[in-house]
């Protein structure tokens, strides 16, 4: 009898983790699921064509609000618990780049995103000087070769999206340097410590003041999850297109709408928060 119940429970749990594939739908016409390098903006190596796709999150109902409130009660007063958290769903992005030209080329596909409070767009952050490295993206941005009239498929894995979401939270909530956030592996961190705002060097010195811990550490249960995925295609060569799809694997009910971006507008919540601008670079 015990084995029978275990089998039934296993099937139910397996069904709760079934993935949902999200593509651009009718609800948000601003989403772009096919990026064309012919539409790139900017110049030189900074030229890029962008697209974004929202995660079909549902407006929080009474149950979700109660869970959030109960979780907030266990947190320090200065730690805000988000509505859409890291433990509620996992994301991965599958992409396909096609070379429409008859010559070989190279491209870089960068992944950024937005949580419910801030978005991250490194192209809006101007380096301090000509020798300063460009602000990093949250994932990807790796040179990849593509043959003439060829196709390259790839995926941003779930763990990469977890890492990217934590990096954005660290950058926007903890004042952690973007390079430090993206270069250090944080996907298994139980918490992160907010720091003071990065100040410029005092007069007569090239060394900026050290950042000091400020406030309570943010535990993993309060990490923010992505509610929007942004992709940027950079290429200097042939005409390329990128198609991509978002794969969502919900872990709790009533957070992700099963109709995806074709759900009625009143049944999903589309977030377009402001872009986070970090403090002055050293």
């Amino acid at each position, binding site marked *: 009898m015990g084995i029978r119940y275990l089998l039934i429970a296993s099937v139910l749990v397996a069904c709760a983790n079934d993935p*949902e*594939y999200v593509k651009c739908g009718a609800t948000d016409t601003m989403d772009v699921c096919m990026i064309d390098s012919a539409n790139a903006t900017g110049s030189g190596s900074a030229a890029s064509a962008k697209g974004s796709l929202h995660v079909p999150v549902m407006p929080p109902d009474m149950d979700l609000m109660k869970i959030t409130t109960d979780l907030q009660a266990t947190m320090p007063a200065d730690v805000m618990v988000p509505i859409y958290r890291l433990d509620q769903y996992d994301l991965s992005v599958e992409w396909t780049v096609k070379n429409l030209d008859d010559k070989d080329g190279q491209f870089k596909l960068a992944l950024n995103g937005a949580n419910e409070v801030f978005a991250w767009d490194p192209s809006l952050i101007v380096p301090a000087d000509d020798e300063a490295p460009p602000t990093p993206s949250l994932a990807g941005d790796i040179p990849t070769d593509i043959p003439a009239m060829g196709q390259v*498929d790839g995926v941003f894995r779930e763990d990469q999206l977890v890492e990217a979401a934590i990096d954005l939270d660290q950058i926007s909530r903890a004042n952690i340097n973007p390079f430090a956030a993206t270069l250090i592996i944080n996907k298994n961190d139980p918490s992160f410590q907010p720091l003071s705002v990065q100040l410029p060097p005092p007069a007569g010195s090239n060394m900026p003041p050290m950042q000091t811990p400020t406030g309570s550490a943010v535990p993993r249960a309060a990490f923010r999850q992505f509610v929007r995925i942004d992709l940027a295609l950079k290429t200097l060569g042939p005409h390329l297109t990128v198609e991509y799809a978002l794969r969502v694997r919900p872990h709790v009910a009533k957070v992700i*709408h099963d109709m*995806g971006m074709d759900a009625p507008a009143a049944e999903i919540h589309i977030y377009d928060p402001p872009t986070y601008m970090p403090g002055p670079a050293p």
Partner: protein
Amino acid sequence: MTFRSGLIIALTVAAVRPALAAGDDDAKPDDSAKKADDSDKDKADSDKKPEAVKVEALVAEPKIEPPKRTAASGFFAEGGLGAVNYFGKTAKAAALGPAMSLRLGLDLFSWFSVGIFASASNHEATVPPPPEGEWFQLYRGGGDGRLGGRIERIAFFIEGGVGIAIISSNVLQGVMITDPGEKYSITFHGGGGLEYQLENRHFAIGLGIDGFFVKQFANMSALDSRLYIRYTYGGG
């Protein structure tokens, strides 16, 4: 009689007893010569050939036939393994995949049974990328009826039923096999098969082939082939 007298008498008897026994042997008649005469007579008789004697069989020699292969009847359970292959539009979007099934039923008559079934199959979605290399599961469950007959060890049947199909993800939405938010559909199936009754009247093995049709999933159609083993709980 005094002790001394009794002792003297006992000793005297013990002394003369062997002598008395020897005398009995000498009194027995000598029949060894008679025995010799009898053996000669028997030998003379054996030299003669016996007369032929007719022996008529009173009972015909039994012809032993193998026992008939009986099949139990009553509640039964079937477990099967096989494969599901799609046709038409779905064949371009979903590959052949392994399947498993379970059926519980009751033989109402020797030629008719009813039952409930549950099956699951696993398929790779071969849709245009992205996504690529993703898999989905198709679960089916419902009720069915089976008409059949038996010739010796071989049974044959046709079956048909109706139920519900559940698809595990919307990976086929991109090719419009499923609509946004669609996970459930009614399903119909029909087919037949053969069954071989084992010596144990409770066990049989069989081959079943069913075609099934899933209405809401863009009229998805497929073929479900399975090998199964059946256990019948009833008597024969």
